[in-house]
């Protein structure tokens, strides 16, 4: 095993397109292209943007009753996930914390799972150790790209008519320009769009088909982060981690009713207790009143001057046109409208708790 940074099948294309390459989770990825983070962000909200997310882990699960077996390590109702559907979920640890968040799809004769690049090394062995009788196959020969934005349906649909008829959280296998791909109508931006798994030797060709559309421009990880932040979506390692429970992280909606009642997943005791009594802290949206961004680690104080929490993600929101942030505040705080102070470089900057998302979501339901 070498420590050299890894490259996706689209690396040369990123360089050709003027991508600024940085290290992310051991991968050489474009943080932005010449259009810049703000331009790429706006492109996604107004038209369509293409993201390379091939660094994420793609996993095939083969065997009997895969969905049921996943329920032993996830609090989601995967046993009843219908064929052709995808569902957001997470692995929990025995303390009720989140090991990683992920998307699980029922692909008929197998399940397809996408996990974070930063946690692949943990997730694949975790599944292999805990899914009895299930073959856990990590895919190394496919790229994964996201096409996101109001024009995404046309960008993808031009080459794959079946994509137009898909609804949010559906997944199909179809040809794009004659190349068989798995297409899922979902994403990490708050916009309508798709994530597409492509054989690695065809990844550039398919990407170029999308980029040939007038409305589609490449976008990097910088814009991906500002988009998901405005959409109120968690980033593993920032907003959720081994110590945070799904209830604290305001992800109760992602645990289906039957699982809340029956338990049967790691950390169920804590999670059930928090559902009944409330959690010690909760993840909320925070809007600084001025123009100074409040980033991860910034202390949150209530109006009386007591420390009530900490920012976990923050930056500038190009669509909002102002700084945006997410963070945890202790029980008893966090109602939208509550005025707080953020301690940035030693000074108290006023801010307000707001409901998430900062920008309305545009999923094709």
């Amino acid at each position, binding site marked *: 095993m070498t420590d050299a940074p890894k490259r996706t099948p689209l690396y040369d294309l990123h360089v050709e397109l003027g991508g600024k390459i940085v290290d992310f989770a051991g991968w050489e990825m474009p943080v932005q292209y010449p259009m*810049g*983070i703000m331009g790429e962000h706006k492109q996604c909200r107004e038209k369509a943007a293409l993201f390379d997310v091939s660094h994420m882990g793609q996993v095939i699960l083969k065997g009997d009753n895969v969905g049921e077996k996943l329920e032993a390590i996830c609090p989601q109702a995967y046993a009843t996930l219908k064929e052709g559907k995808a569902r957001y979920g997470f692995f929990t640890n025995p303390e009720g914390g989140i090991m990683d968040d992920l998307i699980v799809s029922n692909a008929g004769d197998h399940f397809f799972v996408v996990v974070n690049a930063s946690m692949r090394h943990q997730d694949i062995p975790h599944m292999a150790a805990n899914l009895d009788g299930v073959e856990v196959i990590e895919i190394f020969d496919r790229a994964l790209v996201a096409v996101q934005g109001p024009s995404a349906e046309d960008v993808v649909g031009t080459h794959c008519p079946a994509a137009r008829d898909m609804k949010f959280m559906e997944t199909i296998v179809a040809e794009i320009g004659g190349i068989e791909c798995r297409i899922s109508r979902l994403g990490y931006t708050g916009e309508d769009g798709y994530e597409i798994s492509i054989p690695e030797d065809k990844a550039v060709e398919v990407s170029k088909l999308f980029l040939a559309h007038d409305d589609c421009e490449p976008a990097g990880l910088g814009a991906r982060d500002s988009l998901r932040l405005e959409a109120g979506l968690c980033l593993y390692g920032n907003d959720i981690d081994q110590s945070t429970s799904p209830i604290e992280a305001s992800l109760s909606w992602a645990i289906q009713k039957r699982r809340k009642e029956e338990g049967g997943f790691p950390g169920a005791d804590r999670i059930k207790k928090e559902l009944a009594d409330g959690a010690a802290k909760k993840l909320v949206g925070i809007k600084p009143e001025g123009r100074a*961004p409040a980033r991860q680690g910034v202390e949150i104080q209530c109006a009386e001057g007591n420390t009530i929490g900490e920012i976990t993600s923050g*930056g*500038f929101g*190009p669509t909002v046109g102002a*700084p945006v942030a997410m963070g945890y505040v202790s029980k008893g705080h966090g109602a939208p409208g509550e005025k707080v102070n953020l301690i940035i*470089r030693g000074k108290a900057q006023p801010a307000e708790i707001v409901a998430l998302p900062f920008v309305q979501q545009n999923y094709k339901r």
Partner: protein
Amino acid sequence: MTTYYSEEHEWITVEGDVATLGITQHAADQLGEVVFIEQKEAEDEFEKGDEIGVIESVKAASEIYAPLDGEIVEVNEALADAPASLNESPEGDAWIYKIKLTNMDQLEDLMDLDGYKALIG
């Protein structure tokens, strides 16, 4: 009137003992799109190496360090409402401070344009 450059990618144009200070286009390009600048106030004194401001881009915050000793005489107030001007004209309209130099000898430690061009390659 002479312009000097620091290793921290600041420019400083000197006329007598008064100078105008800003960041170079190279620095602005490296920072990416500027969204906010935190500036000191007029009459604040500083020494070479002190932090005299913070520039926030979309992705990160970067400190501005004083290239020499001085006192702030004027702050460019226009930057507060138009932080993006630091990307467009950092070596012109988007100057950051006018300062009074208190140790002219320190100018010898700074580079001229050719020296700076060599630094950034």
